[in-house]
């Protein structure tokens, strides 16, 4: 048996006429950080809801920490931790009470709860604020408290739905470092969803690109990026864009060409950007395409997303 912390096959979730998840397969090896990357509405949250037993799949099946989310929901629940997309905290309780009540819901003993609270307060640096009411917490502190709550029960698998949405850069980097530490030091499996490319690139050892309820590409971030080509030449201009794309595609050193419908850009992936730049621009000018702007860069996950979905992923 392969050691998958999450193993989902053919997940489908329909809400009436709307299909939120449309045949999604997901295999996350234990001890990895896996990021589901996709725009809002792609089905990431619904997938998390199914895997955390909040929603039952219309079709397909999933095992989390070795247990079926439908038939053994209670067992799955004892082994996972979850932080939700929206902040889900009681304003009138103190940080310590939030953690303590959470531990009691999972029937942790008093001594164990006190020890975990002390450890986690240290990990997420909430020491002084722990006995103040959540009402007075900043957004970053609330997120850190939620993270600590998700960790109270020392889960095997931690689910994080958009963990840094709405946080300032400093807090984002902080959360990232806690998550990396958890994965490294405790071997915890993390599944996170994000629509931030940099987050997926920074954190994840595996990225799954989700679009319209399906997994359209999957792999290590570097592998996904390098599969496109060593460099990307982004050409902005006006005129016969389709014709230019076809001509560029015919050049021997071009690995692929993307020309998304909703932008004025043509992305030309090549073996070496600086060497091929002149030829690519030359192919444009002879073909009724007026070049306005050219940049050479290493491809990013954003380019990967665009390549697989035909649309740009906007933050």
């Amino acid at each position, binding site marked *: 048996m392969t050691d998958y912390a999450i193993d989902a096959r053919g997940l489908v979730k329909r809400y009436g006429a709307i299909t939120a998840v449309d045949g999604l397969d997901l295999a996350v090896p234990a001890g990895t950080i896996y990021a589901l990357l996709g725009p809002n509405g792609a089905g990431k949250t619904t997938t998390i809801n199914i895997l955390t037993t*909040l*929603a039952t799949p219309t079709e397909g099946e999933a095992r989390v920490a070795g247990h079926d989310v439908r038939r053994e929901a209670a067992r799955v629940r004892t082994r*996972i931790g979850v932080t939700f997309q929206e902040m*889900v905290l009681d304003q009138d*309780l103190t940080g310590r009470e939030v953690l303590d009540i*959470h531990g*009691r*819901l999972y029937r942790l003993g008093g001594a164990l709860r006190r020890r975990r609270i002390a450890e986690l307060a240290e990990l997420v640096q909430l020491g002084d604020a722990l006995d103040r009411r959540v009402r007075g917490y900043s957004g970053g502190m609330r997120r850190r408290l939620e993270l600590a709550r998700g960790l109270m029960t020392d889960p095997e698998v931690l689910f994080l739905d958009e963990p840094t949405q709405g946080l300032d850069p400093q807090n984002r980097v902080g959360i990232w470092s806690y998550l990396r530490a958890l994965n490294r030091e405790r071997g915890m499996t993390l599944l996170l969803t994000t629509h931030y490319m940099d987050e997926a690139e920074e954190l994840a050892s595996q990225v799954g690109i989700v679009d319209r309820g399906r997994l359209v590409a999957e792999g290590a971030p570097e592998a996904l990026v390098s599969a496109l080509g060593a460099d990307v030449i982004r050409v902005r201009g006006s005129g016969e864009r389709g014709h230019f794309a076809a001509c560029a595609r015919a050049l021997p050193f071009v690995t692929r060409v993307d020309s998304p419908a909703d932008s004025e850009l043509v992305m030309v992936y090549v073996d070496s950007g600086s060497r091929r730049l002149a030829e690519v621009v030359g192919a444009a000018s002879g073909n009724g395409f007026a070049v306005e702007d050219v940049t050479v860069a290493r491809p990013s996950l954003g380019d990967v997303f665009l390549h697989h979905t035909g649309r740009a992923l906007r933050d």
Partner: protein
Amino acid sequence: MYATYVIWTKHMAKFLRSTEELLGLFLQSVLWVLLFGVGMRGLVGEVAGGDYLSFILPGIVALSSLGGAVGGGIVLLDERLRGILKEYLVAPIPRLSILLGNATSTATKALFQAGLMLVVGVLMGARLSPNPPGWLAALLLLAIFSVGFSGLALAVAAVSRSIAGYHGMIFLFNLPLLFASNALYPLAVLPDWMRVIVLLNPTTYLIDAVRALAFGAAPTLPLTLSLAVIVLFAVLCTWLALSLFRRSIRG
């Protein structure tokens, strides 16, 4: 169920901490008895052989238990709308224990409010009958009735989409439960058509029983019938809350 107890203690901690809610409940009790009860006493003097304050106090107490239940329903609604409910739903606890946690905390608030009102009423001069077992029986009926009101409030809280919508729906219950009952006037003075409506209102039975048990009035309805209606009301409302709550958490 331990999880029910955990949720109950959490709600109680939040309740005891929210000074506005406590002060609001307390003042509401005092104002009702003071403004309405004492004012009307000057006008009416005596009803069915007793003083008016003693006559209307059971009704005010019953309706204030609705006020307490409304506050409890708000907690469920708030936790539902803000997603706090999801913390319980991903925890390894029975779904039923979540509703029971809410129901017990709501009923506690309702009973607390009812008890407070009773004390204020007695201090203001309502005359209890010299019959402590009767007081206890009345309190027990009030407790059962509070469970019913809690169910009603939770059922509405399970389906409301906003705080305003919740209050709107609750208000719809509040007014007829008070005025279409025997809370403010005796059954005997009502026209026939209205008496039919009043007899469909479970509050009528509670008020009549409490008057008889705690204030020494002669019951106008058989006590066993009142008990049966109150229990049935509590069971139906709890069932309603449970089914609507189940529907609301189905993912």
